[in-house]
C-alpha cells in the first residue's frame, strides 16, 4: 500500500505536457482561410475552396489536396463529413416514429430507418406496427452501434443501414472518441490486432475496442440481433490488453498521429518493451518519451 | 465599488462563551428533543407531513406524481421520474434584524434555501423508486416555520411522512438526526440553536431505516477521523430509534383511518 502511495499521485508542471505537432504532413501545403491556392487552369473545385474573382482561395485552415483535376482543402480538425460507404460507430440519441436518430460526430444526427436494419431471425418482411413498438428493444437510447452510410440527402442528412451481419449493437468493450481526420478511409474497418484485441475504427472518429469470442467474428453467419449475451467476465489479461490499446489510441490522438492498426501496435509494443504499466501510460513525461522514440519510424 | 457580503447562514464557530456558561442542557446528551409528528395537515396536497423537534417546526407538502412543470434543459428525462423541491424559510425563522436583511426574505429564493432544496433532493433520490414513475415529477414543498436547530433533520423526517402519506413508493422511511460536538468534546444529540452555534462540529445523518446504509451526511466544522466516526455512529443509533417511532406513528394513523371496506 505504501508503494502505491508513491506512484498513485503524479503532479507535474504544465510545461511537461504533451506538445501537439501535426504530423500528417508529407509533401502537402498548408493554407489558411483566404489564402490563394496555386492552381493550373481548368481545375474542378472541391470542398473548402471558393472562387473570388479570378483567384481560387481556401475557406478553411488545412491542407491542399490534389487528385488529378480536383483541388480541395482538407481541414485539420473539423466535424466528420460523411461519404457514402463509410463505416461508422454511432450512438443512438433518440427514437422517433420508425427511425432512430444517431449521433455520429457530424453536423447533424444521422438517421437509421427501421426498414434499414436486419430483423432477428434474418427474416425479410414488411415492418409491422408491432416492430415499431418494439424499436426500443432493438436499439435503445445511448446504445452504440456500427453501421454503414447508405445515402446522403441533399440537405446533408446521413442515412445509415445495418443490413449486414457485421453491423449492429456493440457490446463488451470500450468506446473512445478521436479526431475524425486521424482515421483514414480504408477498405477494412474491423481489425483484429496482434495482441488479440478487436477494434472498429469508425470513419467518424468514434472507435470501439472490444474482445470477441471465437464465436463472433466478421464472417459469422449469425443475425446481428443476438439475444442479450451474458457479459462474461473475461480474464484480467484480456482486459488489460484492451485498456492498453485504449491508452495507445489516446496517445495517438493527443499527438495528432494517424490511427491505424500499425500505428496502434507500434505504441502498444513500445510500452510493453519499456515495461510501462497500464496506469502510467498517460503521464505527460512518459508519453513524451514514447512519442520521441516512435515518431521517426516509417509507419508514422 | 461593488462589494458582496458573504452570507453567514450557518453556525458561527467562535464559541459564544458567555452564552454557553449560562446555558444548561436539560436533557441527557444522547436524547433527542420531544418529537411531534402529523400527517395530512395540508388538505390540497397529495400528501403532507408536519414535524416538531423541540421548538423547530417544519411542514412538507408533496404534489405528484404529475407531469413535470418545467422541463429541464428542453430534454425530458424519459424513463425515470424526477424529484423537485422548493424550500421556504418563513420570516419567523430569523431572529435578528441583520440576518433577516441578509437573507433576502420576500425577494425570491435565497441561496440558503436553494442549497437546502438541493440537499433534500439528494437525500431522497435514491430512496424514491423513480423508475416506477416515468415522465413524472414529484414536487416537494417545504416550509420551515421555526428553526431552533436541526432544521434539516426535521425536514427529512417530515418529507418521509409526506411521501408515505402520498403513497409514493419508497424503499424505506428515512430518519435523520443531528449531532453536535461541543467545545468540551461532548456529543450532543439533536442540538438546539444555541448548542449548534457553540459547537465545534455539526453532523447531520440521514438514513433509510431498514438498511445498514446512509443516504446523506452533512458536516460542518473540523473534526478528527475518530471523533467523526463516533459521532456518525451515535447519530445512526439515535436515528434508528426516531425512525422506529415514525413507523409506529404511521401504523397508528392507518389504524385510525381505516375504513371497514378496505380490510375484510
Amino acid at each position: 500500500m505504501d508503494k502505491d502511495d508513491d506512484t498513485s499521485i503524479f503532479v507535474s508542471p504544465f510545461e511537461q505536457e504533451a506538445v501537439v505537432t501535426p504530423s500528417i504532413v508529407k509533401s502537402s501545403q498548408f493554407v489558411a482561410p483566404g489564402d490563394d491556392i496555386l492552381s493550373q487552369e481548368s481545375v474542378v473545385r472541391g470542398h473548402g475552396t471558393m472562387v473570388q474573382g479570378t483567384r481560387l482561395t481556401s475557406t478553411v485552415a488545412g491542407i491542399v489536396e490534389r487528385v488529378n483535376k480536383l483541388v480541395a482543402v482538407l481541414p485539420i480538425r473539423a466535424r466528420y463529413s460523411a461519404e457514402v460507404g463509410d463505416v461508422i460507430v454511432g450512438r443512438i440519441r433518440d427514437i422517433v416514429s420508425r427511425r432512430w436518430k444517431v449521433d455520429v460526430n457530424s453536423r447533424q444526427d444521422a438517421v437509421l430507418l427501421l426498414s434499414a436494419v436486419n430483423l432477428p431471425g434474418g427474416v425479410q418482411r414488411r415492418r409491422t406496427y408491432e416492430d415499431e413498438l418494439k424499436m426500443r428493444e432493438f436499439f435503445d437510447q445511448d446504445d452504440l452501434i456500427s453501421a454503414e452510410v447508405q445515402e446522403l440527402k441533399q440537405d446533408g442528412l446521413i442515412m445509415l443501414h445495418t443490413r449486414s451481419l457485421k453491423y449492429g449493437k456493440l457490446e463488451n468493450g470500450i468506446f473512445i472518441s478521436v479526431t475524425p481526420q486521424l482515421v483514414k478511409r480504408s477498405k477494412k474497418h474491423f481489425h483484429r490486432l496482434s495482441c488479440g484485441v478487436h477494434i472498429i475504427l469508425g470513419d467518424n472518429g468514434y472507435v470501439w475496442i472490444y474482445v470477441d469470442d471465437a464465436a463472433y467474428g466478421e464472417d459469422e453467419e449469425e443475425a446481428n440481433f443476438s439475444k442479450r449475451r451474458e457479459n462474461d467476465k473475461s480474464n484480467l489479461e484480456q482486459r488489460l490488453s484492451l485498456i492498453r490499446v485504449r491508452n495507445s489510441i489516446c496517445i495517438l490522438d493527443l499527438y495528432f498521429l494517424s490511427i491505424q492498426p500499425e500505428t496502434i501496435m507500434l505504441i502498444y509494443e513500445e510500452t510493453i518493451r519499456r515495461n510501462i504499466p497500464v496506469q502510467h501510460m498517460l503521464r505527460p513525461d512518459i508519453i513524451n518519451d514514447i512519442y520521441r522514440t516512435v515518431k521517426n519510424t516509417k509507419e508514422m | 465599488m461593488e462589494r458582496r457580503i458573504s452570507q453567514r447562514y450557518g453556525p458561527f464557530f467562535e464559541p459564544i462563551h458567555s452564552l454557553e456558561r449560562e446555558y444548561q442542557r436539560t436533557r441527557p446528551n444522547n436524547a433527542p428533543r420531544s418529537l411531534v409528528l402529523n400527517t395530512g395537515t395540508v388538505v390540497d396536497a397529495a400528501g403532507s407531513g408536519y414535524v416538531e423537534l423541540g421548538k423547530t417546526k417544519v411542514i412538507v407538502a408533496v404534489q405528484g406524481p404529475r407531469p413535470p412543470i418545467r422541463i429541464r434543459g428542453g430534454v425530458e428525462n424519459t424513463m425515470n421520474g424526477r424529484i423537485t423541491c422548493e424550500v421556504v424559510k418563513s420570516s419567523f425563522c430569523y431572529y435578528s434584524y441583520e440576518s433577516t436583511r441578509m437573507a433576502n426574505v420576500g425577494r425570491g429564493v435565497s441561496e440558503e434555501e436553494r442549497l437546502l432544496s438541493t440537499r433534500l433532493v439528494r437525500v431522497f433520490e435514491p430512496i424514491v423508486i423513480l423508475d416506477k414513475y416515468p415522465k413524472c415529477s414529484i414536487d416537494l414543498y417545504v416550509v420551515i416555520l421555526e428553526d431552533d436547530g436541526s432544521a434539516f433533520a426535521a425536514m427529512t423526517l417530515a418529507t418521509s411522512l409526506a411521501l408515505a402519506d402520498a403513497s409514493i413508493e419508497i424503499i424505506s422511511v428515512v430518519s435523520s438526526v443531528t449531532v453536535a460536538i461541543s467545545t468540551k468534546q461532548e456529543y450532543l444529540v439533536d442540538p438546539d440553536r444555541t448548542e449548534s452555534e457553540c459547537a465545534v462540529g455539526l453532523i447531520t445523518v440521514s438514513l433509510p431505516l431498514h438498511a445498514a446504509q446512509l443516504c446523506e451526511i452533512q458536516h460542518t466544522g473540523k473534526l478528527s477521523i475518530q471523533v467523526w466516526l463516533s459521532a456518525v455512529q451515535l447519530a445512526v443509533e439515535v436515528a434508528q430509534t426516531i425512525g422506529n417511532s415514525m413507523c409506529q406513528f404511521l401504523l397508528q394513523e392507518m389504524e385510525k383511518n381505516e375504513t371497514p371496506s378496505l380490510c375484510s
Partner: protein
Amino acid sequence: MYAVSKAEKAYLLDTIETGTRLDGRQLFEYRPISLQVGVLPSASGSSRLRLGETEVLVGVKVEVGDVVESSNDNVQLLFTVECSGSASADFLGREAESWSSELQNALESAYRAANVFDDERLSLVPGKFCWLFKVDILVLDTGGNMMDAISMATRTALSTTLVPRVHIVQSEGSFELEIDDNPDACDTLKVEKAPTFLTFSLIGNHFVLDPSIQEETCARGKLSVAVDANGDICHVYSFGLLDAVELSRLLTIIKKTGKVLLNRLDECVKNGESS
C-alpha cells in the same frame, strides 16, 4: 450529459470488479495532474490546474473590506465558481446556479472549518476592517471530478497570493489604511491549513477515487471529503446510499492520500518558483 450505453456500463462495472479502471488506473489512483501558477498577472495569485481532462483556472483578488456581523475573522473568503459554457452545455442556465452554489458552499464551509487564515499578522483593525479574498474559479473543461480539481487549484492559487503590507494610521478614533504601493512589499500567504477535497464515486459495490466523467455517469453514489494536512475532516458531501462500514475504511485511505497529495502539490509549486 455524458451518455453511456448499458453495454458500456456493464463492461465498466465488470472491469472495476477486477480492481482496474478503464484507463488502467487502480481504484484509488489519481489521474496525472498538471499545474501552473502565476498565470494571471492582474490577480494577486492564480493557478491553472489540469486533472485528466478537467481543467480549472483560479484567480485570487485581495482587497480591504468592512467587517461583517461582528465576526472575529481576520480574513473574509468569497468563492465564486463558474463554468464556461464551452465546457459543457449542462452548465448554462438555471442548473448552473444550483451546481455552483453547492460547490461554493462546500469550499466556504471547508475553509471556515479549517480556520486557514487565523494568522495574527493578517489582522487589520479588528471589528472594523479585514482582508477580503475573492477567489474566482473558472472551470474550463469538464472531465469528471471537478470538486477535487477546484480545491487543489484554489489551494495552490492561495499559496502564491501576494498580500500587500498595510500601515494603519489611527487619528481621533478613525482609522486610515495606507496600502504599500511598492510591489516588493508583499507577503505570501501561509496555507498549510488549507484543506483539499477527495472525491469517490460508488460504482457497483466499489468506491473509486477521482472518477472520470464516464465513471461519474455510471455511479450510484458519491462521497467528497475535505481533509487538511493533519487528516482532519473539514467538510463532507455525500450522495446516494453509502454503506456505513465502508466509510471507516475509506477514511483511513483519505487521510493517507490527502497527505501525499498536499505534499506533491506544494512541492510542485515550490519547484516552479525556484526554477
